[in-house]
């Protein structure tokens, strides 16, 4: 008995020690680890890592964690256990970004961006709007030290695309997409007459509803009034907000959305548009690469969401697509910054743009992009992004608003009822935060 007990204790202790030993052999202290979620860019990243190692003898390890929800969870879990890699991306809203910074997991990159290497200041190479998404301005609502905390890898706009072939089939001019909401509705009627499904988007993912509704709201009431609503100074029951919601009712009444779009994920919506089963789609500029993979012969053009009024510009969501931050607690933070600087240089950006069909964040690489991407790039002047808003809506209100739009699209609620419900939640949240 005693002998077996001793043996057991030795065996258990050995197991425990093995369990407590470092999990992996330590990689070279200079090796840079990057975590990302961009499965469409994985091959290009691996190639660039190989090139970097050949050039600078510093290994770079790109670890892909997809889908993006799983990646976001992994990064949060790694932050909780202080196991973040040298470089990673933060998915989510600006408040998540702020939490990571305030918890000491992100390097303030402003000094590096303002320094020059090879004669040009780093930040001058990059699109301002892409950098702005990663910037916290002075007096920001989160109390973060002002500065730029992330490096944009590419630029994205979220807008509309239309199928030129289906347009022709409906007797419409394939080079003249609708310029305003009335035209959009009349074009939809023309498409309906030819039994062509009209508009698809992954409205089952509520952030897409949010983006589309936000575009319309900015156009109808101007961004100042939208921000005033977020700040609690204008109620959601205001006539302008009801008008925004009424447009979704009109979309239902005119049967503009394809059946099932209200619970559709964006991947399915992309398949629907790529397979020419819808004339319009609301999607991000990453769709160029996606559609190319799904249907290389697809003939389509990019357009802004149709304007409801000429009083205010149509503002679309745009700015940095994927951004990387550097872990402040990493021993390799300096090498990591050097790697990001190299990654945003002309040659690497041109390579990424060609391989992944995304808009580069480096201004000099813009001449390498395809014509359809250039159409997206043309609309960059109209781009804004929730990350650059001076004030943000709280998640419960955003969710109530977006879910309310789903309820309008399925004919369950009226715009007025949704506005009242959203305002009720807004008031509750305002009271909570007082």
């Amino acid at each position, binding site marked *: 008995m005693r002998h077996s007990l001793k043996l057991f*204790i030795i065996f*258990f202790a050995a197991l425990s020690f093995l369990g407590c030993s470092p999990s992996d052999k330590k990689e070279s202290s200079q090796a840079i680890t990057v975590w990302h979620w961009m499965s469409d860019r994985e091959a290009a990243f691996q190639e660039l890592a190989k090139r970097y190692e050949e050039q600078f003898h510093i290994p770079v390890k790109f670890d892909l964690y997809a889908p993006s929800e799983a990646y976001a*969870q992994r990064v949060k879990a790694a932050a909780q256990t202080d196991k973040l890699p040298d470089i990673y991306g933060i998915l989510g809203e600006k408040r998540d970004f702020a939490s990571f910074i305030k918890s000491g997991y992100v390097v303030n990159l402003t000094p590096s961006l303002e320094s020059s290497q090879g004669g040009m200041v780093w930040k001058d190479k990059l699109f301002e709007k892409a950098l702005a998404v990663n910037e916290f301005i002075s007096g920001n609502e989160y109390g973060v030290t002002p500065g730029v905390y992330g490096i944009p890898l590419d630029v994205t706009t979220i807008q509309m695309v239309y199928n030129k072939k289906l347009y022709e089939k409906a007797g419409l001019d394939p080079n003249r997409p609708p310029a305003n909401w009335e035209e959009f509705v009349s074009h939809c009627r023309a498409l309906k007459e030819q039994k062509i499904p009209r508009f698809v988007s992954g409205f089952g993912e509520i952030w897409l509803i949010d983006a589309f509704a936000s575009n319309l709201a900015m156009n109808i009431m101007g961004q100042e009034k939208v921000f005033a609503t977020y700040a609690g100074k204008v109620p959601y029951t205001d006539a302008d907000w009801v008008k925004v919601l009424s447009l979704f009712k009109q979309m239902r009444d005119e049967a503009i959305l394809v059946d*099932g779009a209200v619970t*559709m994920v964006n991947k399915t919506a992309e398949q629907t548009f790529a397979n020419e089963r819808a004339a319009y789609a609301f999607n991000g500029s990453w769709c160029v690469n996606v559609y190319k993979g799904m249907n290389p012969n697809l003939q389509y053009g990019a357009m802004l969401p149709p304007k409801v009024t000429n009083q205010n510009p149509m503002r679309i969501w745009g700015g940095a697509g994927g951004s990387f931050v550097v872990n402040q607690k990493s021993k390799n933070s300096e090498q990591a910054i050097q790697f990001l600087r190299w990654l945003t240089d002309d040659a690497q950006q041109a390579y990424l743009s060609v391989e992944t069909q995304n808009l580069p964040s480096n201004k000099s690489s813009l001449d390498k992009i395809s014509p359809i991407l250039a159409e997206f790039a043309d609309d960059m002047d109209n781009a804004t992004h929730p990350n650059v808003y001076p004030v943000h809506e709280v998640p419960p209100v955003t*969710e109530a608003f977006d*879910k309310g739009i789903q*309820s309008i699209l399925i004919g369950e609620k009226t715009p007025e009822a949704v506005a009242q419900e959203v305002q009720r939640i807004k008031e509750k949240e305002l009271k909570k935060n007082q």
Partner: protein
Amino acid sequence: MNLQKIRNGLGNYVFILPAFLLFFTFSLYPFLKVFQLSVTNWDGISPHMTYVGLSNFKDLIFDNRVFWNSMGNALWVTLLALTVQNLLALVLALLCDRDIRGGNIYRVIFYLPPVLSGIVVGLIWNWIYDGNYGLLNHFLAFIGLGDLSRAWLSDPKTALVAVSVIHMWKGFGWGFVILLAGLQSIPRDLYEAARVDGANSWILFKNITVPLMIPVFVLVSILTILGTMQIFDIIIATTGGGPGYHTEVPITRIVQTMVGSGQFGYACAMGVVFGIILLIISMIQIRASKMMRQV
């Protein structure tokens, strides 16, 4: 003598130490941690968390209609699973309990859906239910019921039922296997003796099968309730909780609150309340089954 006793006792504790450590690390600690987090307003990232007392619970219980609506949805799916799914499982188990040709093949076929991933099942049914090119709509048109065609998962009248059907299709195999095992454990001579006494099939079922199967029914019911109330993967793969809140269930609300809204503490409070509700339901069921056995 006392020293020897202590040594022996210590030896016993050393033997259970690994199991205890595993249980503590992976069950007890997370369980207690959820309680701790539920009284904070932690965002899931920051190393600091603020104690907010019972305010999360107060808001959840008295002012969160969406959560209670999701609870109602889960109960509705559970009710369907308890009745339709388990009835189907019982009928199939009764059929397979007889010496029918190819019985083993049927057993394998019926057990296939549960071993498939919920996400895969959800994606397959997405194609079946698709409003534009779905198999179900094609079939309805083929049999002359084209007027019933719709986007089954996006229509508020059908979304929850459509999701329930997927869940039941995926889940009936579990009940089938357990019920079949229960049926096969009933001594055959009981049936033979009853037949000699002139009992027909219904009498055999009512007076032998049902009483002897009560513990199995209880087990299947508890597993069905706990499994269905925690339905998640199928919802995520089909409707994401929409349209509106029509297919929201407690787990999708917890995930949305935790990941989507960054309210980790509040989501933990939801988890605690949901766990307590499941515990109460299970206890009621065990109590009821004990009473049934006494009757």
